[in-house]
């Protein structure tokens, strides 16, 4: 079992890594709301946000190559969604020339940049702490109890199930190589059902063993988080700078709605 998609850079030492996970969650969520609430078509403020986020990336010591690779993976979806803004208007509304659609293209650029900046912020957040610490932070921030328990369970078994998925994929590829054909859909269906089925059976075993150990909905021994004054100071400073950029831009839009 070797999965590098979680906690790859969480052991680095940096000012961002040392912050309390709750403080980081609040700061990143606030920053995303502030960026996203920027009026559409506004590019200049996004440059300032990008600059600030770049400084944050440098402070976090998370390799920029890794962050860029994350952006590259999601960028086709983001760019397609952003490009659909002018395209959806071109397809149905009356327009004279591409020049007349300049504001729409500006909106598309701003939408794509906002989305990519949010992706960078999320990547820094997840790379700067152990994933289970972030989940613990969310629970301490009073996320719905049900989601807290489900997340804790999911985090514990995701790796085991992923191994199961890899095994079934290897078996599928070795038996039915090649491109997607109609007959292969059946194989894909069987594979999906098999993953569900094995998960289901495992969940029954897990549930029984949890009950036998006295599980009543809470995981015992969750470590205490302690927030320092400096954590609050740094995160407030971070949010205030974002807010300052947002509020000094008066060209349109009503905060918090874009």
């Amino acid at each position: 079992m070797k999965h590098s998609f979680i906690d790859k850079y969480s052991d680095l030492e940096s000012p961002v890594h040392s912050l309390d996970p709750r403080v980081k969650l609040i700061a990143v969520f606030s920053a995303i709301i502030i960026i996203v609430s920027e009026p559409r078509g506004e590019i200049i403020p996004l440059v300032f946000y990008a600059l600030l986020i770049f400084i944050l990336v440098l402070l976090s010591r998370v390799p920029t190559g890794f962050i860029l690779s994350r952006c590259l993976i999601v960028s086709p979806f983001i760019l397609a969604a952003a490009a659909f803004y002018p395209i959806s208007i071109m397809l149905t509304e009356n327009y004279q020339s591409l020049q007349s659609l300049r504001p729409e293209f500006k909106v598309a650029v701003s939408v794509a940049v906002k989305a990519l900046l949010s992706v960078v912020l999320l990547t820094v957040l997840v790379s700067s702490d152990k994933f289970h610490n972030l989940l613990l932070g969310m629970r301490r921030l009073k996320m719905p109890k049900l989601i807290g328990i489900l997340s804790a369970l999911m985090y514990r078994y995701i790796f085991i199930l992923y191994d199961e998925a890899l095994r079934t994929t290897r078996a599928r590829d070795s038996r039915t190589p090649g491109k997607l054909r109609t007959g292969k859909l059946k194989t894909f269906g069987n594979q999906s059902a098999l993953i569900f089925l094995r998960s289901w059976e495992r969940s029954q075993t897990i549930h029984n063993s949890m009950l036998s150990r006295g599980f009543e909905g809470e995981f015992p021994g969750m470590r205490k988080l302690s927030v320092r004054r400096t954590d609050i100071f740094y995160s407030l400073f971070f949010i205030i700078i974002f807010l300052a950029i947002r509020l000094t831009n008066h060209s349109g839009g009503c905060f918090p709605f874009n």
Partner: protein
Amino acid sequence: MHIADGIIDTHICIGAHLVSGGLLYVSGKKMPMEEIPGVGIMGAALFVASLVHFPFAGTSIHLGLFGIAGIVLGKNAFPAIFTALLFQSLIFQHGGLLTLGVNALNMGAGAYVAWLIWRMWKVPEYIRAPLAGFSGIIIPALLMTAEFRLSGYGRGIVYLFAVYLVAAFIESAITFSAVKFLRRVKPEILN
């Protein structure tokens, strides 16, 4: 299908977060404790199954499996989908934190409609199963198109919906096959 942060209007995202929060609160109150581990593991399975990619038209696609989630989990599908999406947004940045509520409501609605279709016991299973798989994709696509439209996109956004029609047909075939497999191997999971 996963809407990233910044793509649609902030007020839609905040509204969806509030509705999701309400639904999760109600689910939490109603769900018996003994069902929670099962839902958690199935949520993990949903997350993992969506990581399995298939070669398609020179690229690779992954399944949503919201139809199967609806069939197997029923009303409990929404919390499982919400948690799976939370993980996807944090680990892979597929979807965002602000759009988590919107994405969960879209896909949860797909699973819920799939469950309603699956409960039409008088309809033969060979019709119910693919229809559930189809609705698991097409309902979220419909809602997503409406949200894009509400966010100022032009009427041409309906073409995006057409793209998802192809995915819905593939998903319906796979759901049908998966249900047949489950019926043969472990039929009690389908009831």
